[in-house]
């Protein structure tokens, strides 16, 4: 066999592969993106024509979409759910970052009796599935009288083992000499945390904040059981209501509700794409 035919075979394989991979990538991208695109189109289309006639492959009417959004926001409890969820997410993020970074500062940079035991326990809890704690936690929240309250939603999630792990990993890379320099500069323990460790951990904190936002916004099970009163419904629950089998809503209205729910995480993704992807990859490679 001459080397020319071998080369030709390789070149042919190369071209087939090049062509195939584009076809494949585009197909997968369509499958991944289309449902979201379709949802968008359903909202921004004239409600008149039934879907079976016009399958909504592209948006047709901006104004009808806007009016649907307006109706949902004004005439349903959606707006309140929005505020509840934003409050839920923001308070969780702030609390988790503050409490977690304080603890991570100690775990990563100092030694004190009982540290290994406590940290080991927290890391062990990463292995324990939420199913085993969710009901007893609910019962505790009920006992505290926190059902249907913001603190009931937020507080039990603040001591996040995952968040602590992420921050400890990061703070371990802070040089010990810098902490000592601050100590010699007369900074108290808390001030070292506040002026040195905290600002230097900004990257890890931002990553954790974004991941936490995505997770809280998408949390369905916990609000479902702990905040069953309509006044404190989260977006997830309201969307669930719209979608319930006997809600008798038309597809346009339901999709508008869905679209509004997807907007914040989608915006976050578009802005912080890099950080989100890094954060997920990081948690994977450390696991």
């Amino acid at each position: 066999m001459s080397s020319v035919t071998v080369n030709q075979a390789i070149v042919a394989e190369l071209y087939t592969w090049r062509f195939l991979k584009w076809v494949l990538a585009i197909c997968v991208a369509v499958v991944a993106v289309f449902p979201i695109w379709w949802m968008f189109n359903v909202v921004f289309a004239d409600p008149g024509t039934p879907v079976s006639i016009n399958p909504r492959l592209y948006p047709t009417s901006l104004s009808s979409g806007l009016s649907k959004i307006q109706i949902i926001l004004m005439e349903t409890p959606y707006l309140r759910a929005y505020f509840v969820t934003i409050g839920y997410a923001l308070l969780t993020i702030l609390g988790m970052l503050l409490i977690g970074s304080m603890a991570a500062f100690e775990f990563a940079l100092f030694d004190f009796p009982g540290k290994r035991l406590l940290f080991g326990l927290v890391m062990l809890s990463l292995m324990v599935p939420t199913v085993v704690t969710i009901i007893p936690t609910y019962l505790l929240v009920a006992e505290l009288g926190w059902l249907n309250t913001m603190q009931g939603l937020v507080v039990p999630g603040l001591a996040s083992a995952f968040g602590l792990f992420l921050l400890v990993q990061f703070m371990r890379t802070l040089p010990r000499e810098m902490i000592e320099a601050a100590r010699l500069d007369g900074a108290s323990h808390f001030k070292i945390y506040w002026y040195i460790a905290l600002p230097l951990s900004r990257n890890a904190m931002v990553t954790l904040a974004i991941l936490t936002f995505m997770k809280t916004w998408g949390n369905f099970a916990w609000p479902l059981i702990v905040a069953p009163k309509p006044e404190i419904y989260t977006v997830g629950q309201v969307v669930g209501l719209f979608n319930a089998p006997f809600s008798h809503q038309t597809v346009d209205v339901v999709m508008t509700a869905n679209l509004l729910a997807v907007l914040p995480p989608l915006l976050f993704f578009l802005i912080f794409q890099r950080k989100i992807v890094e954060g997920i990859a990081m948690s994977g490679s450390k696991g």
Partner: protein
Amino acid sequence: MAELEIKSVSKSFGSVGVLSDINLKIASGEFVVFVGPSGCGKSTLLRTITGLETETAGDIFIDGKRVNDVDPAKRGTAMVFQSYALYPHMTVAENMGFGLKMAGEPKAIIRDKVGQAAAILRLEKLLERRPGQLSGGQKQRVAIGRAIVRNPKVFLFDEPLSNLDAELRVQMRAELIDLHRRLNATMIYVTHDQVEAMTLADRIVVLNGGIVQQFGRPLDLYDDPDNRFVAGFIGSPKMNFLDAVVLESGPDHVTLGKIGGSDRSLRLPFRSFDPSIKQVVLGIRPEHARLGESGADSVPVIINFAEELGDVTYLHGKTPGGSPMIIRSDKGRFGGQTDCHVAFDPGGIRLFDNDGRRLRADRN
């Protein structure tokens, strides 16, 4: 400006002893250098002085005041770290003023003091930069500036120049000497580079294995070492050590034989040599050994190679007994001859017993 006294300080990490029974008295305004091989406890001693480590035993006095229980920030010491330890998220000015800010000083005073320190170190143009935008030497100067701003009684430097390249190191050394003269402050400087120690120090502390081997002026350490460790550690190239036996001794002399495994013997003036000592180690610096004619008092040496540095030439060889031997030769080129005879300048000979202790003649 302050006097520092360390009284029988020991330090151990768990069961590992790092410092044992350190006693030092450092005068006000003195520049003292700690030298010693890696891991001998220099940094630990420094960190104990400043309070980052707590001594296991002993006391530390600054200006006569016991500071064992005084917070590191309030001892009146300032430390410059090997890694600079600058705060990367603050500007140079903020870095230098951080200590004052923590002390609650008003902004105007912080600005003034930072400005003064910056002027001393020629950092005025860099005040708004961040550490990431500085060169190594500039970072080092900022770290020193941070120490100056605190106006400490004692400056502590832990190998501050080891991250710099050779040229910058020489330049920074000169700046440090200048700084010391201008501030007239007590400074303690850690290094494991003995050239640095010799050039900077008023007095040197040689540490080994957590024990002070000797504390004295650089040339005293060089000329009159207390033990074999100091003799070998100070000076470059190193002092040569040759085994010898004591043939006989009198009230004013001692005669050594089998020097470096050769059959030569040497009579040295030495007042009241301890007759119970039968074996000694003879120390001789390269510059006190001369190439000479074969003779009764010269030791044969086989030369292996020569280091021709221009101004001097160092010949590396071995005595018949196999001890390495370095000889300094000022003139001529290395002709390639291998068998030589080396004569010792009697004034340059130092004797040590088998445990490395210096054997000194009685003075009177």
